[in-house]
């Protein structure tokens, strides 16, 4: 369950940054991304899957959230 910092990049996409691993990836898709809720399964551009319980109302980025690995 790593702490992940999510921020917007210059192009407007979301970056997924794990400080402990120095991992910085772009988020490819988010399961639920509406005006009420944000979360569910998150797929990164490198193919890895992560999960977070949907948050409502959606968080304001940048922020730090606690994710689960998708395969756990």
């Amino acid at each position, binding site marked *: 369950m790593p702490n992940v*910092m999510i*921020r917007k990049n210059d192009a407007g996409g979301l970056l997924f*940054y794990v*400080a402990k691993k*120095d991992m910085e990836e772009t988020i490819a898709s988010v399961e639920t991304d509406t005006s009420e809720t944000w979360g569910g399964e998150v797929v990164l551009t*490198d193919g890895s899957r992560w999960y977070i319980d949907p948050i409502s109302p959606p968080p304001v980025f*940048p*922020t730090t959230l606690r994710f689960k690995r998708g395969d756990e």
Partner: protein
Amino acid sequence: MATLTRDEAQALIQEVLEAYPDKAKKDRAKHLAVNDPSVEQSKKCIISNRKSQPGVMTIRGCAYAGSKGVVWGPIKDMVHISHGPVGCGAYSRAGRRNYYVGHTGVNTFGTMNFTSDFQEKDIVFGGDKKLEKLIDEINTLFPLVKGISVQSECPIGLIGDDIEAVSKKKGKELDKPIVPVRCEGFRGVSQSLGHHIANDAIRDWVIGNRDGDTSFEVGPYDVAVIGDYNIGGDAWASRILLEEMGLRVVAQWSGDGTLSEMELTPKVKLNLIHCYRSMNYISRFMEEKYGIPWMEYNFFGPTKIAESLRKIAAFFDETIQANAEKVIEKYKAEYDAIIAKYRPRLEGKRVMLYVGGLRPRHVVGAYEDLGMEVVGTGYEFAHNDDYDRTMKEMGEATLLYDDVTGYEFEEFVKRVKPDLIGSGIKEKYIFQKMGVPFRQMHSWDYSGPYHGYDGFAIFARDMDMTVNNPCWNSMQAPWLKKDAASA
């Protein structure tokens, strides 16, 4: 020798790896790669930030070097105690040429060495009492000191001293920030973790100090220069460009910087990061907590400077954008003259780099402005995100080497035969004895500054006087030359 093709470069790497035993070969193979600028994610072809192999020559430093030497050391109005035995502080004192203004020993302490000089009894009975005494002594002898940081050396972590408790107690007593930094040398694989620990210490002990204080007048054009350590005056050469654009530089991190500048940084509008590796952590934190955007910029060479100035200006209104164009225009005659003078002398020369932090990718543009080509580059302590950024800057089929060993670097140079090598002091004399022109690119070979338009003039002159130095034709003894001619 012409530039290597992709296959030749691969073959060279294979050939160099042959010297290693199987296990070491397998490990080192992951750190050497041939660049392909189209690859988006470096982790597919190069592995970095791993422990060095025992038995090879590496030029990495330790966490203490990253924290005391790089991040904290240049903050001029604080005393940085090298807490532990005397050597670490003594041998790293003032080696990095972080210039500053002030009266050393009165209101600034940059080139001085403060240490608790651990003895056997301190290891056996603990050094907390000694640290308390030391802090009191510093405050008595140097009453203008604004704060103190305690930079732990290895034994502090090993014997389990509670420097946090001492710092809290003494900080309350003296009413000055006293910052314990857990940067024991054995932590991590290189100085990189030291940067991270130092950033975390700033986050925990410095950044929030003036959160409720509104006495500082904020302006619409406030920026902070982050990750510029003023080596040979670099930060000053960068700062004047930003100020000419109409921006107000509130803080310099950490070259020629002060504690109060750091405390005021959360009030700026934009953080400008030069050295991404050592200070991205704190910038990310400030973005999250205070909503301050950050951007990376590059002040090496006119092409990159113009690019960066425009990118910085894009964050602000039209006046700043117009000013940025004016600044570029103002210096155009100056840098065109430099290029006209040096480019014919340096055109087509090939460079190999092996440095740390930001230089292996940032100086590429400056070399290209002079018509030179970077044929190989590598970092001492980079992580994957650095290589992501590097691979776009570098040409097709150039060599990439992470944490290169002494043996590998020598072999690469023997085969690639570059016209110039830019690396550190530990490589300098080996390559000079091999007859290869060399610049020490950690502290600009005691020259500098290299940032900004002013720095570019010095950079071009230095490269010219190194590459075109007549001494490289006199590397062979005269009697050997005659022999070769007659044979």
